[in-house]
């Protein structure tokens, strides 16, 4: 990383608009004056009365410095120090700019109505294309084609992180950036990510987003690992198909109950050791439902992959690398991914 000490962050960039706000600061779309390049500036203010550089910033930057090679992880181009109007130290993280995220992308499709299964679309197309509204038709055709590609890219990016000993721990549609033109998907927001090549280590419940949280974390396991990210990937997969969150709980208990109602209340037979987890209680007993009831328009191969991502027992859950090899992706053209 070349350090351009000549220009301060303010002098080097022209802020164009604010595009987001997070716990530690704002995100701007900006133009680099020297090159005209559009970037995303993530601004973090350092309060001198607090404890120095925030851990989330430190983890995010150091992990991105390690992961900078993969096309499916957002690229951190530079870190600059500056001062704001009150003379306080500010850090600017300079990222490549991506024009949307998966959350917005999904929402844009939700507004166009109910899902039509891809195989039905193909039949209708071959028989009588003029029956349907053209826009409605192409929107859904478009999404069904790109579903595999987006999921493959997500698995590939996660496999890359895991291959480097990094857990993301906050995978959700909002943290998956997209370029609408190229349909490239990139993993972002690694402020909660963490290295796991550490012997004898406990992790805390620092994961924030409830809907994508794995059951072992909800039940209080502190020794979790790569499998927690794959649970999130499974939830995202289902949401891409239905355009609704798979398990939209509003408390930890409700989150668990949402999961148990669909997958059945776990027991020692399906998940050895579950009853010894810290937060385990007696729960209402539900029988497992078929995943097709929750994701009716996903084909058989997709349902199989999804079921392997949503295994209760973490060690049985499919890994990102193995997911990439699943037959669901066999007919996907992977040359540009």
């Amino acid at each position: 990383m070349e350090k351009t000490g000549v220009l301060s962050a303010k002098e080097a960039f022209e802020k164009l608009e604010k595009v987001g706000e997070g716990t530690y600061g704002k995100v701007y779309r900006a133009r680099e004056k020297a090159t005209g390049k559009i970037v995303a500036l993530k601004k973090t203010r350092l309060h001198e009365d607090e404890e120095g550089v925030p851990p989330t910033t430190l983890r995010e930057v150091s992990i991105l410095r390690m992961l900078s090679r993969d096309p499916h992880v957002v690229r951190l181009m530079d870190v600059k120090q500056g001062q704001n109007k009150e003379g306080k130290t500010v850090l600017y993280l300079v990222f490549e700019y991506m024009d949307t995220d998966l959350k917005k992308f999904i929402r844009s499709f939700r507004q166009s109505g109910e899902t039509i299964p891809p195989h039905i679309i193909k039949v209708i197309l071959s028989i009588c294309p003029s029956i349907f509204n053209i826009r409605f038709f192409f929107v859904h055709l478009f999404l069904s084609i790109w579903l595999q590609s987006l999921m493959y890219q997500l698995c590939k990016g996660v496999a890359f992180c895991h291959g480097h000993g990094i857990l993301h721990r906050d995978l959700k549609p909002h943290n998956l950036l997209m370029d609408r033109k190229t349909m490239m998907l990139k993993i972002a927001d690694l402020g909660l990510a963490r290295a796991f090549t550490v012997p004898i280590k406990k992790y805390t419940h620092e994961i924030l987003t409830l809907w994508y949280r794995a059951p072992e974390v909800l039940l209080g396991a502190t020794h979790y690992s790569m499998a927690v990210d794959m649970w999130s990937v499974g939830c995202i997969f289902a949401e891409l198909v239905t355009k609704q969150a798979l398990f939209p709980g509003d408390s930890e208990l409700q989150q668990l109950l949402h999961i148990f109602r669909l997958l059945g209340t776990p027991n020692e037979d399906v998940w050895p050791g579950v009853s010894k987890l810290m937060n385990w209680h007696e729960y209402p007993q539900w029988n497992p439902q078929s995943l097709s009831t929750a994701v009716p328009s996903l084909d058989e191969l997709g349902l199989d992959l999804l079921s392997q991502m949503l295994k209760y027992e973490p060690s049985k859950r499919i890994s990102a690398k193995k997911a990439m090899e699943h037959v669901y992706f066999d007919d996907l053209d992977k040359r540009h991914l």
Partner: protein
Amino acid sequence: MAPSFDFASSLLCTEDSAVFDESHNNGGTMMSMMGVYEDTWSPRKRHFDEEPDELPLLSDESLAMMVEKECQHWPGLRCLNKLQTGDLDFGARMEAVDWILKVRSHFGYCSRSSLVIQNYLDRFLCAYELPKGRVWTMQLLAVACLSLAAKLDETEVPLSLDLQVGESKFLFEAKTIQRMELLVLSTLKWRMQAITPFTFLDYFLCKINDDQSPLRSSIMRSIQLISSTARGIDFLEFKPSEIAAAVAMYVMGETQTVDTGKATSFLIQHVEKERLLKCVKMIQELSCNSGSAKDSSASVTCLPQSPIGVLDALCFSYKSDDTNAGSSVNSSHNSPVAKRRKLNKTCGADLL
């Protein structure tokens, strides 16, 4: 159930001081040491039995990537050379390292943390020249490195004031530590995911044990030896993967459970044979010099037996001199002004 869990937690918290009877090494506990998926104890063994080809931690290709990347984080020969020629203050570094070990012990951080902190310290010292004769700057650097490592890797980060335990000569304000943190981060280019011998240890122990989980006692012994390599400077010439391979080979050889020739032929696929054997020899000497193998305090106080060790002793003698005590008082008296002026200048330089 509950007693079993408490026992396991207790083990996890006392990695450096635990003394194990053989009977404590049950399959479940061993698996918890090695397994990525650690939600329960007993199923771990079944997991290994069912999928013997799947390693819990680094895959073969991940290991290759880590070996490729470790040079980015390795202070290496350049740092060693500076220490040996006196360009870097050997005694001040030793004092900082001792302080780091005491603080780490105080907060119960695992052994990896002290290696990470020292990685930051040594890389910084190689890349940036602290002002001579300002003893407080090394202390401030140690505090900043400790703070950064705690934020990056530990689940609980002490406040700045609480961090400065262990008979520090100087006490720094939070904002002063922040400035030093930023200086360390920019000097190291924010590459803080340090690769240490612990990155490779589990993989090597498993591989030379025929892909089976090694005894917990072997893991604890390995951790202890790796921690001991960190205090002196002799092991600075070796990469983390070389140290991990040598320790794994030494420990497994020590227990007579593996064929040394077979282990060597595997390990030299990843590290150079000559350097591996040299490192094993030095590990052996380190182990002998530390006396009781399981006495961690003895390990911590072990001095390297080399010309550098002689220099080390001289530095200690100098520090005990009354004249030095006087100098120390003077330094304390001057440090507020010097500290403030120097850091402002440094930060200003960074911003230009």
